[in-house]
């Protein structure tokens, strides 16, 4: 049985991080992180797109269409990373019983789902000219699709409980079950069909031209910043919703 926040509170009394585990204390911090996130996202996106479109050369193999990579790959990465982050906060919530962890998890889910959709959409548009088809049932596309289903399931489950607390813990459990299964699904889909390009970016030896790689990495950080900012915004909204009875929220509205 998950510990209640109060019990855990006793246990962690005096530790610095505990102070920020309460929604009221984290609200202003989240606001600051959000602002930094928006700023970084916009700045990095401008730099990344400038390099990607005006500095990076045409790809010898694919021509101009490869420029989709600057959003396709970051979106696909974010879709995966956000799911992991969601599972992490869900586990934290179930173990420590902190409300904020569950809220964090809820705040991440819609952005993760959007990233999965973007990865799929751009992948399809990229695939048509390069592979000759909008959709191939290959390992990466298929597992991104399944990842999208997992996001949908998580959000649908969280929404189907009237009791917020119950919904928190139920959806956290399903996020964990999903996270355990993601590698297995990935492996099985790989087994089923291995027809997709090998990953072009590897630590150490990269085969991408360095300027293309630079642009893509900058775009990845831009996406990262955007996702953090969006999640923080959603988190703050949730805090207002859930704590709407508390005095400090009322003062905030005034």
């Amino acid at each position, binding site marked *: 049985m998950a510990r209640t926040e109060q019990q855990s509170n006793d246990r962690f009394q005096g530790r610095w991080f505990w102070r920020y585990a309460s929604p009221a204390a984290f609200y202003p911090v989240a606001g600051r992180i959000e602002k930094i996130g928006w700023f970084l996202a916009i700045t990095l996106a401008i730099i990344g797109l400038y390099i990607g479109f005006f500095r990076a050369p045409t790809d010898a*193999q*694919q*021509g101009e*269409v490869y420029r989709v990579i600057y959003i396709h790959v970051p979106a696909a990465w974010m879709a995966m990373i956000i799911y992991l982050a969601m599972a992490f906060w869900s586990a934290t919530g179930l173990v420590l019983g902190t409300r904020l962890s569950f809220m964090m998890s809820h705040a991440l889910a819609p952005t993760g789902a959007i990233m999965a959709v973007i990865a799929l959409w751009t992948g399809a548009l990229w695939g048509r*000219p*390069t*592979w*000759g*088809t909008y959709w*191939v049932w290959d390992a990466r596309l298929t597992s991104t699709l399944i990842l999208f289903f997992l996001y949908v399931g998580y959000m649908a489950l969280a929404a189907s409980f009237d009791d917020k607390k119950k919904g928190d813990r139920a959806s956290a459990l399903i996020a964990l079950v999903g996270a355990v299964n993601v590698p297995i699904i990935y492996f099985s889909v790989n087994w089923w*069909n*291995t*027809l*997709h*390009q*090998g990953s*072009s970016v590897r630590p150490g030896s990269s*085969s991408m031209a360095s300027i293309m790689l630079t642009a893509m990495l900058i775009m990845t950080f831009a996406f990262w910043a955007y996702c953090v900012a969006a999640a923080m915004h959603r988190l703050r909204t949730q805090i207002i919703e859930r704590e709407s009875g508390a005095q400090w929220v009322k003062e905030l509205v005034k």
Partner: protein
Amino acid sequence: MTLKQKRLALILGGLILLAGATTLVLTALKDNLAFFFTPSQIKANEAPINRTFRIGGMVETGSVKRDGVNVSFKVTDTAQVVNVTYTGILPDLFREGKGVVAQGKLDTNGVFRAKEVLAKHDENYMPPEAASAVEKANKAREGATKTLKY
């Protein structure tokens, strides 16, 4: 049994199940992992006739002949060559001397009738599977004493 012993037994049971699962995965991985047939396998009559399967390798340089939408080309793993015919528009990355995977059926004359042609590109400009097929064929030519198993 006390509650503690019961819990211990449960955890132990779970671990045994997980160990079993791992063993099964490992034995499975040792088994055949081929996702497509190489020209060498086809020439050795390992591929079935009149059944859909995939063939992988490189498009032989100078072998592509176009006649309207009908295309014929040769797929090679450097040791053996298979004739392939295809009707339709080829993808951008389809190039002579580059990796290709085609899906279709082998007819009785030994011609592969492709229903779908998929080009692949990666850092080596060849699918890793096709690259390894080429490599294996090379090895097979070098040492006749070595027996290769796909």
